[in-house]
């Protein structure tokens, strides 16, 4: 016998279900007085450095029907490309920027929306710069394990063209499923869970 590795197995994921708001955004679903506010609603304050932007999108299922009961979370670098995380060893991130946001898809028009800042570039593992991006994670009824993807920006075409992750997408027409379209200071990206316009999801 060889020595044992003593690895545990990861706790298996289960769907967040239709009532995920009770736990993650209780004030949004009218459970008031337990927490002061819902987590992840304020990513920036008056002191936050960088270009203010709005990032929004809808989630559509395989029948092009809006998914109105999802929760979206985003994680991104600050305007200098630093993460507000203890594992960030390259410097200290902007203390006035959380880097993390959480928003339910709206029960009426199906949009999630974040008031945030445009992230700076961060390096890939080999040092090449990645194009500015936001990590997006979504959970909902019917989704057994949370789906990760990235949001890139349509006005960063030059950086997107050499982004190490986007370059790995074999079917080039699928790259655009990760690129949010700019209109003024608002970037919009629809997430398609399934079908011909299916978003590229990541195993990270």
């Amino acid at each position, binding site marked *: 016998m060889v020595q044992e590795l*003593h*690895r*545990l*197995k*990861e*706790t*298996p*994921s*289960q*769907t967040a*279900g*239709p*009532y995920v*708001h*009770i*736990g*993650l955004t209780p004030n949004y*679903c*009218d*459970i008031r*007085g*337990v*927490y002061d506010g819902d987590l992840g609603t304020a990513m920036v304050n008056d002191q936050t450095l960088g270009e203010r932007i709005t990032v929004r999108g809808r989630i559509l*299922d*395989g029948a092009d029907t809006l998914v109105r009961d999802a929760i979206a*979370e985003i*994680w991104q*670098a600050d305007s200098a490309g630093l*993460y*507000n*995380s*203890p*594992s*960030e*060893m*390259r410097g200290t991130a902007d203390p006035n920027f*959380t880097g*993390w946001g959480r928003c339910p898809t709206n029960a009426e028009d199906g949009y999630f929306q974040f008031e945030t800042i445009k992230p700076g570039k*961060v390096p*890939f*593992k*080999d040092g090449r710069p*990645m194009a500015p*991006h936001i990590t997006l*994670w979504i959970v909902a009824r*019917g*989704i*057994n*394990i*949370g789906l*990760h993807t990235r949001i890139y920006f349509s006005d960063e075409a030059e950086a997107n063209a050499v982004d190490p992750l986007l370059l*790995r*997408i074999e079917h080039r027409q699928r790259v655009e499923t990760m690129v949010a379209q700019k209109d003024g200071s608002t970037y919009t990206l629809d997430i398609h*869970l*399934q*079908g011909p316009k*299916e978003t590229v*999801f990541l*195993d*990270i």
Partner: protein
Amino acid sequence: MSANSNKQPETGGFFARDRAWHAPALTPEYKTSILRSPQRALLSLDGTISEITGPVFGHSMIGELDNDLIHNYARPGESAIGERIIVHGRVLDERGQPVRGALLEFWQANAGGRYRHKKETYLAAIDPNFGGCGRAITDDDGRYAFRTVKPGPYPWPNGVNDWRPAHIHFSVFGHGFAQRLITQMYFEGDPMIWKCPIVTTIPDRSAIEQLIAPLDWDQTIPMDARAYKFDIVLRGRRSTLFENRLEGN
């Protein structure tokens, strides 16, 4: 980092997720998954700094009653109705290391199986003293605990006569966003676990058993509350001894 810890933050990539251990995206017996499951292969990416970092929450954000669902929504002097239980455990990673400072959020139905949510139409009554949400942050040993009432089973529109077993939903943050996890805890001995099409989205029986909390008699408080123990395992990570420098060039 807590003040009494002298450990350096870890910056290694996470062990690859075993997606045969987790449920696949498409599990037709759970009907909603049919149109909400991607059909293309996932694009694999060994974690970059965008995934190995993640938000960390301070203990200061936790209110006194945040981990007491019996009282955190109740009117003064009153409490939720139901079987009083304590749920406790540790958050570990796949290497068996405690995950300190992990934020856990939990939500559940009341003792009758009724959720406090406007989309919920089950005829069982709302408990005026029960909201159904709570949260906690693990200590330096990875420990957490909360007090609640045992949730009831409830029917749902999937098959003609499908009922969820009693369960508590858990959302967990580790130290990297790639560790982000949502799952459900079940109760030892519940015969409905094995009938549930959401439970059985998970193909491996021993993986399902990892979601079943045993009755923890030793931690039961006499004349007060029984205890269930639920440990959670998040992805482990490599040491960085021979990793490329994440800082880049």
